[in-house]
């Protein structure tokens, strides 16, 4: 925190304390502006770095209210084990589930539409056992719950999307950072392919535009990018441990473009190297320029 911002914050919060309730909102706005845009938490315990990252963003209660129905969307796309880094780390998912319940969530739903056999993906990823043990509702996607949604995007005019995403009070996106042949990298914006019904393989013909279109429609409350292990080659499903790098990191934030832009740096790339990040920035979905982001790094 620089001096100028400190003084501003101190002045405003002082004013907030001394002034009557009407100015409380102003104080809150100031506090909000002091919050980091991105939190990068590093440490050996996935559960603790997730909690630290969310705390630095204002705590889970800032995002989840009592009685909320929360959808958590990890990547459960592949029949791979956690060590192979093909799916979101189950401990990261479990940590978020736990925090949501602590914040008083009424129901926490965890699902994905996998590419491989759903049963194997849910079990082998470790996500279904971990999340359901904490009381989350872990169901396979139900074909009847895909409904055509007008997207009005550049590539996607309308597409069947999973209704539970839109029915939930809060949505938390928990992707994993991975190499990907056609998109180069898959992180938060690409994770929404998991709520697409129909023949989603077709969107590869205009992948970057389609991903930006999806992010215009789906606005998560919070995004946590799992980089406990990242997959550096042969993605998005990997398989060989030689392609896995253990970073013990999660990146939390609200702006999906910024998160993916930061995620690119984990692979030695820049956000602008990724088509969907560039388009997302140009369309104002978020900001890819990391120099303009308040990034807080935490070691746990």
């Amino acid at each position, binding site marked *: 925190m620089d001096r100028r911002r400190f003084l501003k914050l101190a002045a405003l919060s002082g004013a907030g304390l001394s002034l009557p309730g009407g100015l409380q909102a102003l104080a809150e706005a100031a506090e909000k502006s002091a919050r980091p845009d991105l939190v990068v938490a590093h440490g050996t315990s996935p559960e603790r770095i997730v909690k630290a990252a969310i705390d630095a963003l204002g705590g889970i209660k800032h995002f989840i209210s009592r009685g909320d129905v929360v959808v958590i969307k990890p990547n459960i796309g592949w029949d791979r084990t956690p060590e192979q880094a093909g799916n979101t780390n189950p401990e990261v998912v479990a940590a978020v589930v736990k925090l949501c319940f602590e914040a008083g969530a009424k129901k926490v739903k965890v699902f994905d539409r996998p590419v*491989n*056999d759903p*049963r194997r993906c849910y079990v082998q990823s470790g996500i279904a056992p971990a999340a359901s043990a904490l009381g989350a509702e872990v169901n396979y996607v139900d074909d009847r719950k895909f409904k055509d949604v007008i997207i009005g995007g550049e590539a996607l005019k309308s597409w069947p999307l999973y209704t539970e995403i839109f029915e939930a009070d809060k949505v938390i996106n928990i992707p994993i950072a991975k190499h990907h042949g056609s998109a180069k990298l898959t992180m938060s914006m690409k994770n929404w392919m998991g709520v697409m019904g129909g023949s989603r393989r077709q969107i590869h013909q205009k992948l970057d535009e389609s991903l930006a279109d999806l992010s215009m429609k789906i606005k998560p409350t919070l995004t946590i990018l799992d980089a406990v292990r990242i997959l550096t080659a042969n993605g998005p499903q990997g398989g060989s441990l030689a392609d896995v790098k253990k970073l013990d990191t999660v990146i939390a934030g609200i702006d999906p473009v910024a998160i993916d832009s930061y995620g690119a740096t984990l692979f030695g790339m820049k956000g602008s190297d990724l088509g969907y990040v560039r388009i997302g920035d140009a369309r104002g979905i978020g900001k890819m320029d990391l120099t303009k982001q308040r990034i807080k790094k935490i070691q746990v």
Partner: protein
Amino acid sequence: MKRFLTIQNVRRIVQGFFLLLFLFLFIQTESKGNDELGYPVRLFLDFDPLILVTTLLSAHAAAKAFALSLITIIITILFGRVFCGWACPLGTLNNLVGSIRKKRPVGMYGNWYRVKYYILTAILVSALFTLQPVGVMDPLSLIIRSFSVSVFPLFNYSVRAFFDTIYNVNPLGLAGLTEPVYTVLKKTVLTFEQSLYDQGVFIGAVFFVILGLNFVEKRFWCKYLCPLGAFLGILSRFSLLKRTVSEGCTSCGACATVCQGNAQPDVKDRWRDTECLECRNCDDICPQNAVSFGFTGRKKTAAMDLSRRRMIASIVSGVVAVPLLRAVPISRPGAQDPGLLRPPGGLEEQEFLTRCVKCGECMKVCTTNGLQPTLFEAGVEGIWSPMLVPRIGYCEFRCTLCGQVCPTGAIKKLSLEEKAKVRIGTAMFDKGRCLPWAHGKPCIVCEEVCPTSKKAIWFEEAQVRDRQGKMVTVKQPHVDLELCIGCGICEAKCPVLGRPAIYVSNVGESRSKSNQLLLG
């Protein structure tokens, strides 16, 4: 007052137990997402001594689990065909269907019981010459195959259609009541997804005709056609349990009306022990209480009375069937059906056919529904054996369930490490249909889904010109022939529907010496 605990009722309870056990194990023949199934789902087949014997004859070896079928043999030698009368799930179904018709003719086809012995003889003789046709008629193979490929998919279809209709129409808010029921059904008896099979209609029709024959005569199949029944019948020739009729018999003929096996219980000293299903109906019904079963005394029975000419005809049929079915061009390298993709761990084709009994367990358990029954792709000899059809479902990279459930070892049980290396075929591109190759459009879904690491599908970026003359960069995919295992996920997920732009044929399959492509 009528006693409840008659032998007949005890038998019905036992039959019900075995039928439910069969259905339970059948329903458990499905992935729950773990590497192992956790239930001995092929248990009934392990107890089938006919498959043991034919496999020993045709393949000169048998899966270890068939040691259990020795128990069936011992029980039959002690007590006769109790397996047929008390345990066989197909027998019980025949019994049930046959009971629908109240007044029924009995023993109309007196000497037809011999037919099953001729069928058995032909099967055994052809097995001696390495043919394995037993699966087509073995009752356990038959019922598992019929349930897997036809009856159960039909059941699932009906239930789903019923609940989906109520859900969509929602008359009087009824869906609120039916949806919880549907959820319970989905978690218990329904399959994870609706599975669909080629040959389902054909195999189902055969099965329903067999059940329908009970209207001609109750347990028609068991009495006249079943080769396992014939096999156990021969064994029960030596059974220690004997039926005796005391002096009190008034020859009223009541026993003949209830006999399940056409064993002519009413003809004194001419009881056909080979036909008796040990149902004990004759004991229960006898008004004089003259019938008893026991281990003492001399066994007085009718002779088996198989005509020598017909026996010779059966033997000759069994012998002739071998060259008849085998003298076809598909045995030549390169002349076989290129789409015949055998499950991973499948033995070399000749050996595979000497073992596969077409029970369909592998098709039932296949997580993607990709394993389908053949018609003539593997010749008439290989009818209803398993074949992967990637457009219906690919072979899941880390799944080994088909090898786990195969009762005969036609599909070897593989470890995950072995599975990753077994090649069931090779994928190749149809560049005239592939989006980046033929149409200058980005795609490479095939590369994304390719499960080997490193990936067998790779791409290079190429500059192509579109219609307006603009240069477009596309990623053009290639197959690495050394790495491709032929799992077919690329074909399954290729967005070029209908005829895909990448497809798998069996060239290069690990199990074959001759069907190879690469040098060395």
